[in-house]
């Protein structure tokens, strides 16, 4: 506040002063935006660019023959080829699980966001708190809690087993548990952008749909849904991208073999397999590249051009 007051004072004084003073003020004003950029840029360079370069370097390193855990700098593209040929099923599984979780989160999140935006009335804030509340507990703890919920003796598997409705007898250690965990964990990331999109829709515009001979369903399909597409786009990306790279759900809710996702492979290559650093780095880069390509195709198709 003091600084601002001083600056205003200075500007006021200089108005009547010499041209030199004016030039000084204009000059410092021109610099201000760049000065404001410095902390953000520094943060990005230090915590994004440097690690990325480091990761790229590691992904191209060569193992030192005979000395596991030692590497030398190289352009070893074979790391990528090897990673892909060995672990392509895990990539496929990651995108499949993330895709199913995204669709499920959309199917759950859209009605939730719609109810919050249009039907909740004075309950809106309570619902909002309920959507955000899980963030107050650790992601890992919540996922462990889901293991209890889905456990064989837990309420869901227990009841289904009692009714003989659960083939195999388990929910944990199956893909169902992993997808359920992913869906649960990323639901708020789907709901909130859609909600903020829907909240901006003027209810009168929806009324206009009804006034112009569109019944409830048609109005939703031709007015409400198209107007909320920016939120749907943001929500699906914010769910799919982290879900595709996630390993916590597969680790805690899945089995050791059949539900491993690419994140689990990276984790084990990095922490458990001796000499796995380059493979882990190559896998990370490949995952990033595939997601970028998918993202590009997706936004081109449902892109911002037709959105508000």
């Amino acid at each position, binding site marked *: 506040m003091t600084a601002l007051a001083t600056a205003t004072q200075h500007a006021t004084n200089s108005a009547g002063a010499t041209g030199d003073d004016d030039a000084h003020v204009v000059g410092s004003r021109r610099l201000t935006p760049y000065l404001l950029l410095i902390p953000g840029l520094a943060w990005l360079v230090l915590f994004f660019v440097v690690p990325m370069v480091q990761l790229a370097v590691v992904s191209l390193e060569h193992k030192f023959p005979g000395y596991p855990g030692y590497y030398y700098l190289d352009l070893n593209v074979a790391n990528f080829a090897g990673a892909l040929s060995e672990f392509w099923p895990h990539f496929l599984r990651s995108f499949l699980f993330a895709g199913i979780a995204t669709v499920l989160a959309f199917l759950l999140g859209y009605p939730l966001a719609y109810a919050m935006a249009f039907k909740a009335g004075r309950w809106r804030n309570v619902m909002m708190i309920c959507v955000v509340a899980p963030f107050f507990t650790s992601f890992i703890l919540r996922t462990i809690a889901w293991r209890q919920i889905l456990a064989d003796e837990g309420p869901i598997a227990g009841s289904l087993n009692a009714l003989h409705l659960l083939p195999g007898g388990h929910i944990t250690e199956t893909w169902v548990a992993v997808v359920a965990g992913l869906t649960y964990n990323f639901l708020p990331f789907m709901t909130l952008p859609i909600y903020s999109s829907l909240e901006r829709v*003027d209810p*009168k*515009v929806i*009324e*206009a*749909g*009804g*006034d*112009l*001979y*569109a*019944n409830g369903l*048609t109005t939703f399909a*031709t*007015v409400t849904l*198209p*107007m909320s*597409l920016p939120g749907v786009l943001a929500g699906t990306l914010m769910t799919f991208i982290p879900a595709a790279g996630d390993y916590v759900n597969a680790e805690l809710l899945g089995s050791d073999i059949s539900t491993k996702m690419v994140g689990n492979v990276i984790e084990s290559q990095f922490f458990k397999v001796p000499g796995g650093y380059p493979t882990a780095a190559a896998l990370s880069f490949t995952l990033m590249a595939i997601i970028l390509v998918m993202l590009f195709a997706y936004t081109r198709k449902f892109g911002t051009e*037709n*959105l*508000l």
Partner: protein
Amino acid sequence: MSLNSAKAPTGLRTATGDLHLRSVTKRFGDFVAVDDLTLDVPRGSFFALLGPSGCGKTTTLRMVAGLEQPTAGSILIGDTDLTGSRPYQRPVNTVFQSYALFPHLSVRDNVAFGPKRRGEADAAAQADEALKLVQMGHLAGRRPPQLSGGQQQRVAVARALVNRPEVLLLDEPLGALDLKLRREMQVELKRIQTSVGLTFIHVTHDQEEAMTMADTVAVMNNGRIEQQGAPSALYDLPRTQFVARFLGQANMFDAPIVGADGDMLFVENQGRRFGVPKKRSALTQGVVSYGVRPEKLRLAETEPTELKPGECVVGPGRVTDVSFTGVSTQYIVEVPGFPPASVFEQNLDVEPIDTHVGDQVWLRWNQGHAFAVAPAPAAGATP
């Protein structure tokens, strides 16, 4: 939903004729927004619902559109009862106050929305024709956010008109426009209404707008229609305090009726008698509010000794304010024992303002122009 499944695939009801509201009441909790309202709007007329905000005029409109359902009563077009049907089933379209255009659709697609939903094959062609009618054909490819307020308003009118509804509802459509544009659109809307011959119901709080455009004006207050009629008739002979004050200005004072002579009634205030024709008085005895419109009053700088037949006079009073408005000058005159009176004089002379603040004046008027209504119920309710 299942109401009309046997009819057109959209469930649209065909109905034609005058619009009737029969004892329509709408309550929101304890609040009565519309109170036992009965209204007939002849087919093809330009009908204005005029009233202050909160008087129930927009609620009435929304019930006709189907956006609200009446708590009691029924709404008919011709002989078809539309009560309880959904908005999309009614041959009624609305021009919303905020226009409510679809921001994600082009202007053409906005206008074609209605015809498409009704399954018309040439929806785009119909849209282009409607846009031409409102002189927006050249902007059909734009999106609503790229248009100015006046242009959006025209698109909103076209979007409703294109459906050729039995009744077109306009919910304060000109409220957001500046004065000049509003005047233009008033003329334009009137022209469009005349050329298409549809029933227009126009909701507004702007009495000048209502009087300029409508064939019939209904003045609403507290959920009821106070009076309805041709604009000139309403202005000339208001039947309630509220109408007298809401539609134009009125100089009014409360006084008891003290006598009658032929077809005239007389009230007395400050020892003077003022006449009002019997047929222009809402009451024949007791205390009435006696009123005269400001342009019916004449200023005199000396006490008039010879009055024309039918004239009466009051004074002396003092001019407390003079405001020049171009075509006319408004004077505020205070006569002891009377509320401050407003007088409009047309500026016909070269030197328009020849009366100044503080001057002593008399007021005279033709008693044939006076009217009398029931006095305001509560003490101090008169402004």
